């Protein structure tokens, strides 16, 4: 490179520092432009978005290539057995939404859904519920016996109901009715309408999923659990709200003692599930979460795990927290679900920009995965990319 033979030191330092500062000010606000795409490329109002198609192709590939799937399962189960289970749940819910969005591929989706559901029920029957729970589920006995985990009951019920809403399957009617009966019995058996997921540990996430499953079941079978849903929301408003933020607590004991305060890894999905239970309450929770946890910096969106008024421990749900900005991988991933479900296109767009910028997409033969994520993370993203039609069908009583 040609440059003057000697530039006086003082001038060089002054100009070098000033131009570096200027370049930083110019470049940083521009970076997002290289990653920002219209929200519809992630979550489309109708049809299947390009990103959903690529993510779905990868997951369908996992269920048609046993070696690849086993490798992915080994990776996840090494960290958390729950992820194996949740990866299945999110994928089934996603495929049900995909089938409603793209009826031409429904047969393929139904085939994979049935395989996932059948294998999940077999594993649960063979190894018991602890197979899909973290080891501390065995650390002490469940308070309510015989032991049951609302985490499993709710998500399996929602899997069965989603499948049936996409297309009726007679052999799933009884298992769904039975799961819903157990959920109702457990909830009604506690003054706070609380049921354990782990010993004396009740999770709002699992309650919201279970209530959504109940609403889907009502739409399918003509039952009416609106009183139970109304009662649960009433208790939640009175007993489960974090005073400073107005957000729902994440976990509590059967007696209502708060364990974890509001958490991003919980609240986005809770707000989405509550759309079927109490639309106004759900929207209020989403808007509060957006205000308390959602951030956009230089065009990149992300979510914190905790509001400013609550500080919890970094754990398997939050994922690593980036210091300074308080970016939580877990909360940011789940924020996609909230933003897509509530039609918050601006937030979807900025979150998707961050995803492409910092989650390291990897494309191969039309299949998309994110290197900084795993199967359950990608399945949750797929769910966010296709969310909508299933809830819509439940609202219209199981009809289009």
């Amino acid at each position, binding site marked *: *490179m040609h*440059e*003057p033979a*000697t*530039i006086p*030191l003082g*001038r*060089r*330092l002054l*100009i*070098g*520092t000033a*131009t*570096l500062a*200027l*370049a*930083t000010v*110019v*470049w*940083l606000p521009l*970076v997002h432009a290289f990653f920002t795409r219209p929200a519809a490329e992630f979550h489309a109002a109708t049809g299947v978005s390009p990103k959903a198609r690529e993510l779905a192709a990868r997951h369908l590939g996992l269920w048609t290539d046993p070696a690849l799937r086993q490798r992915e399962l*080994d*990776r*996840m189960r*090494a*960290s*958390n057995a729950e992820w194996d289970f949740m990866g299945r749940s999110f994928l089934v819910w996603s495929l049900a939404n995909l089938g409603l969005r793209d009826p031409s591929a429904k047969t393929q989706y139904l085939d994979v859904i049935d395989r996932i559901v059948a294998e999940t029920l077999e594993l649960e029957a063979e190894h018991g519920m602890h197979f899909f729970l973290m080891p501390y589920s065995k650390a002490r006995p469940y308070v309510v016996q015989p032991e049951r985990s609302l985490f499993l009951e709710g998500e399996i019920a929602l899997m069965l109901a989603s499948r049936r809403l996409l297309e009726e399957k007679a052999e799933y009617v009884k298992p769904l009715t039975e799961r819903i009966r157990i959920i109702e019995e457990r909830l009604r058996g506690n003054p706070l309408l609380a049921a354990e997921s782990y010993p004396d540990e009740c999770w709002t996430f699992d309650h919201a999923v279970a209530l959504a499953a109940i609403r889907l079941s009502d739409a399918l079978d003509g039952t009416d659990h609106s009183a139970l849903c109304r009662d649960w929301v009433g208790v939640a408003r009175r007993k489960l709200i974090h005073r400073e933020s107005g957000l729902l607590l994440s976990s509590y004991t059967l007696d209502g003692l708060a364990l974890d305060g509001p958490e991003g890894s919980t609240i986005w999905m809770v707000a989405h599930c509550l759309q079927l239970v109490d639309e106004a309450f759900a929207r209020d929770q989403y808007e509060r979460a957006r205000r308390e946890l959602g951030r956009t910096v230089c065009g990149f969106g992300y979510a914190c795990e905790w509001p400013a008024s609550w500080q919890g421990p970094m754990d*398997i749900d939050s*994922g*690593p927290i980036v210091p300074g900005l308080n970016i939580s*991988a*877990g909360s940011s991933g789940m924020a996609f679900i909230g933003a897509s479900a509530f039609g918050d296109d601006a937030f979807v767009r900025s979150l998707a920009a961050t995803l492409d*910028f910092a989650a*390291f997409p*990897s494309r191969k033969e039309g299949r998309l995965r994110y*290197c*900084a*994520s*795993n199967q359950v*993370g990608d399945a949750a993203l797929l769910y966010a990319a296709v969310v909508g039609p299933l809830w819509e069908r439940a609202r219209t009583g199981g009809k289009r």
Partner: protein
Amino acid sequence: MIFGRLRRFKEWLRADFLSPKDLVLRALSISILFLVVHVTGLRDHTAFLCGTLADPTMSWQWAAFLGCTYLLLYFAFVLLVPILLLAAAASAALHHRLERCCR
């Protein structure tokens, strides 16, 4: 002959701190390092961010080290390299202008 070229290359690499050439050389070094870690597949090890090992036979510490190395070089490549190049261009233009004014 090879040693002669090597010496000339080493001389060419020499640049005054914060001179335009110094900024470009730094951008070039980061780009080469990033290219190396990208081609060698370290991108997969960023899975440590979600608490998962890209290779279950690998230790957590080693996986996190590889993942962090990729992260640092990726962000340096995407954020720092353009800044260094923009600064080099602006700084070269300023030096050139000042030279002309002082003549």
